């Protein structure tokens, strides 16, 4: 899935992905205040843990990524949370790779940040079912965006590894539904108990 190992992607893709990811992480660092540091660390730990748990699904196996949730709760900070989680997974378990850190960060955090920026304000304003539905859309959209980005970077650099659209859909659509449910549940819960948790740092400034 989104843990592309070393030695598959071509140099231009690796460098391009690295630059975009670095820009995203720079944005996250600029907005990092005391409040954001703690929240980013918590979500980074959550991302690190859930993306280690994989479930077999036909020819492949899938794991949660929480991209949409991170985008809603952290905004740009999602890039930093994902980078830290992926770096630790690559160094400690050899999952993903060191050269692909940038691309993998982009693949996972990018769609999440976009979803957070697009839907975040509406989610924070909405109430009840509407809020849950919007959060679900953000969760599912982030997963599908990750699927699209993974397919794109593979197609751009290694034609023989280009994913087959039918299989990608069969893999990512069930995951998107699960992520939608989880994102909706977590966001609805936080909105009831701790609405401030849904504000990325900087949103109030």
């Amino acid at each position, binding site marked *: *899935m*989104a843990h592309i190992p070393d030695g598959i992607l071509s140099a231009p893709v690796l460098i391009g992905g690295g630059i975009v990811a670095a820009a995203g992480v720079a944005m996250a660092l600029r907005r990092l205040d005391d409040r954001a540091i703690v929240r980013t660390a918590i979500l980074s730990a959550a991302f690190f843990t859930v993306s*280690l*748990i994989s479930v077999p699904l036909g*020819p492949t*196996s899938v794991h949660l990524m929480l991209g949409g949730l991170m985008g809603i709760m952290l905004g740009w900070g999602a890039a930093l949370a994902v980078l830290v989680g992926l770096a630790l997974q690559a160094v400690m378990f050899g999952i993903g790779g060191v050269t692909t850190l940038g691309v993998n960060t982009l693949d996972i955090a990018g769609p999440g940040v976009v979803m957070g920026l697009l839907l975040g304000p509406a989610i924070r304003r909405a109430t009840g079912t509407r809020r849950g539905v919007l959060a679900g859309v953000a969760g599912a959209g982030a997963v599908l965006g990750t*699927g699209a980005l993974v397919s794109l970077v593979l197609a751009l650099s290694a034609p023989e590894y280009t*994913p087959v659209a039918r299989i990608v859909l069969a893999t990512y659509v069930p995951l998107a539904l699960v992520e939608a449910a989880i994102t909706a549940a977590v966001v609805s819960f936080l909105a009831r108990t701790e609405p401030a948790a849904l504000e990325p740092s900087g949103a109030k400034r």
Partner: protein
Amino acid sequence: MILRVLSVLAALLALSVPAEAHKLKLFATVANDRVSGYAFFIGGGRAEGVDWSATSGSGGPIASGKTDDQGNYAFAVPGPEAAPVTVSVDTHEGHMASVTLGAERFGGAPAPAAAPEADPTGTDRDAHMAALVEAAVARQVTPLAEQIEALQDRLRYADILSALFMIAGLAGAGLWLSGRRKGEK
């Protein structure tokens, strides 16, 4: 809020202990010039119905197909191979793995010095014996090799914990830095 999130994390962690990363791996073993093995996800079961292919380092495909419902594949290598043979699998959604088998495992390139032709019967017997020994050793070693393969990538509880504490440490360092910056102002 933080406490609540931490307790959820702890619950996830407890769940994750028996689970392992999902990373596609390929197991391969050679016996009597026949390569067999399976594709599996670390902790996530076998990869079923996945395209596999074998290519020779000296160029050209040897065999290809789809793994069965146990993730198995097998093919024969007709003659001695001069170059390593690479087996790869691709799930066509972003997972791929490959394993390279050295030429020496096919009785190929670094072949033992040819025996003198004067004693053909002796050479035949030796060759036959060598094949038998090789088959027996392969049979014994295969389960071990499988275990090593699986062990190598097993996630360890201590590793997961240390990563989580590493994140906490990073957060602490970040807070310390930002506190120092404020102090300077």
